[in-house]
């Protein structure tokens, strides 16, 4: 999987690269519009992360450029601009997702995977890792073909975990993933905990294994051997 990160803030681009390298992706960086433009014309990428405000150009033009050369790459906009207009504009000209800074790397990872799956595993409706299987369109989950009866939130949670296997996932990022930015709840972590407890119980009941490891003080880790 080859990914291009177009982001002028070098540190942030490096962070993204470091996170994705562990996923086994090949990650290239472009710190400005010109480099990015050159790269998309020369190489083929599976997914491109674009910051809208670049020092020498607008990230939206880059998306137009991609469409002009009929690139099949998935496009995710990462922007500091949180306005609805920008979001709609970005999605209208053909980006697949829009993420507002500051974001959680684990969330970016989950979104990236979702985009890639939609783009490249079109016929394949399932998302399977070892004994775990999810059918996103139908919101169904299985362990070794035993169906899990999950609530909507528990399903979302499992999906998020399966996108970030063996990674430390903070409770903040889980809360944001489940309820969105608007959820300004002081004790939403209690809710995260309650959902995790239920998911863990349901999964253990079928497989006898505890997939969810608690990382004290930080969050959780979804373990698959």
């Amino acid at each position, binding site marked *: 999987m080859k990914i291009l990160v177009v982001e002028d*803030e070098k*540190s*942030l681009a490096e*962070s*993204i690269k*470091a*996170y994705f390298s*562990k996923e086994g992706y090949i990650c290239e960086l472009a710190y400005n519009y010109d480099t990015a433009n050159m790269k998309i014309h020369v190489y083929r990428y599976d997914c491109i992360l674009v910051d809208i405000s670049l020092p020498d150009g607008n990230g939206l033009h880059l998306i137009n450029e991609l469409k002009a050369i009929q690139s099949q790459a998935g496009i995710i906009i990462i922007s*500091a*601009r*949180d*306005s*609805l207009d920008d979001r709609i504009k970005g999605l209208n000209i053909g980006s697949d997702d829009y993420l*507002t*800074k*500051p*974001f*959680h*790397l*684990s969330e970016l990872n989950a979104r990236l995977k979702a985009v890639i799956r939609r783009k490249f595993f079109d016929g394949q409706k399932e998302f399977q890792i070892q004994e775990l299987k999810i059918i996103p369109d139908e919101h169904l989950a299985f362990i070794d073909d035993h169906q899990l009866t999950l609530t909507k*939130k528990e399903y979302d949670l499992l999906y998020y975990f399966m996108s970030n296997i063996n*990674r*430390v996932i*903070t409770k*903040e990022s889980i809360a944001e993933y489940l*309820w969105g*930015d*608007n*959820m*300004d*709840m*002081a*004790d*939403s972590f*209690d*809710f995260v905990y*309650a959902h995790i407890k239920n998911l863990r119980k349901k999964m253990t009941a079928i497989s006898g294994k505890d997939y969810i490891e608690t*990382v*004290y*003080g*930080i*969050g959780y880790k979804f373990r698959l051997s």
Partner: protein
Amino acid sequence: MKLLTKTRRYYLSLFLSILAIWTIIFAVAFHYLMIDSVDEALINQKELIVSELKQQQTPHLQFSNELMSLKPVDKTKSVATSFSNIRMFSRAEKEEIPFRQYKTTIIINHHPYVLIIRKSLLEHDDLIMTILLTEVLLILLLFIGFYFVNNRILYQLWEPFYQTLKNIKQYNLASSGIGVEFPETDINEFQDLNKELERMIKKIRKDYINLKEFTENASHELQTPLSVIKSKIELIMQGELNKEGEIQLISDAYEATGKLAKLNQALLLLAKIENNQYQQHQEIDLTEMLREKADIYREFAAMRGLKLELDDFASVKLKMNNYLAEVLLNNLLSNSIKHNYEDGNIEYILTDESLIAKNTGYEPDIQPEKLFNRFQKSGNSQQSIGLGLAIVKAICNLYHFEIRYTFKNPYHIIEIKF
């Protein structure tokens, strides 16, 4: 008080005092003139009487009536000539009336007599009254005339001023353009006023735009370094953290970063609302939206044993920005859950006129009117950033909704009138 009313009042008091002073001066002066002329007439009359009596050669003349009396006196007892005002009964008027009396000694055929002649002053008093009344009438007429002419002149003179005032009132820093059109005028003071106002408005507008851009840019610029910090901490977390102390440090830093990011987003939102940047308004079914939101929040409410009830029989439609309507309901609902106690109650009543958000909770330790200020928070919630209600208030201000908070033990009540 209006300028015209104030001017009118000054003129009225000026006219009245002139009228009063003038009336007194006129009355006194006229009175003395009258007395003078009566005295003259009396002296003339005396001369006539004397010359008349001299020709008659009658000794020991003596007679007396209302207007005249003649009495012989001793040579030694002759009186000094004098004028005096007296009041005595008049047979003609059948009452006591004022007279001018002239008392003098005359010599007829070597015999001294005391002659007293009187003249009624009644007509003179009447005359003074009549003249005064006419004068007062004249002045009143003058005043009324002046009043109307003056109004007209004042209005015409101040017209450019009122026009300027009207234009300023219509000016809106956020929505109007660069400047205000001021009326042409040939009055220097108004020209100055307009020029200065124009200069001031341009300056304020420039500062306002600068500030607006600054707030927005600052918040935007903060997002990127925040992303960097957040991502770096996340990467550290992915490594092996052995010591428990390390984990605590990292998780504290991460939590604080998250809070900072939320705070920054809230401030940015507040700045955008106050800068009137949410311009797209559409008709929103508030009832539907409230039901959806309540379903989401019921989960949180249930976790704390709270009951969330909706009383929304009416289908309420409002013209609002969709996003702002969502923010409004989100903030109200999360507020109702946050500032509550275990097993409490939440009740939302939505009607065509208002939305009432009621929830149980402890008595607030801040004054109700301060509740909507930025960064005001009640002591028991350390987690909240204290901008939720400030944002609610800003949205209400934007749409000219009236918002009121009351505490009726044990209910916190926020009422928003549409």
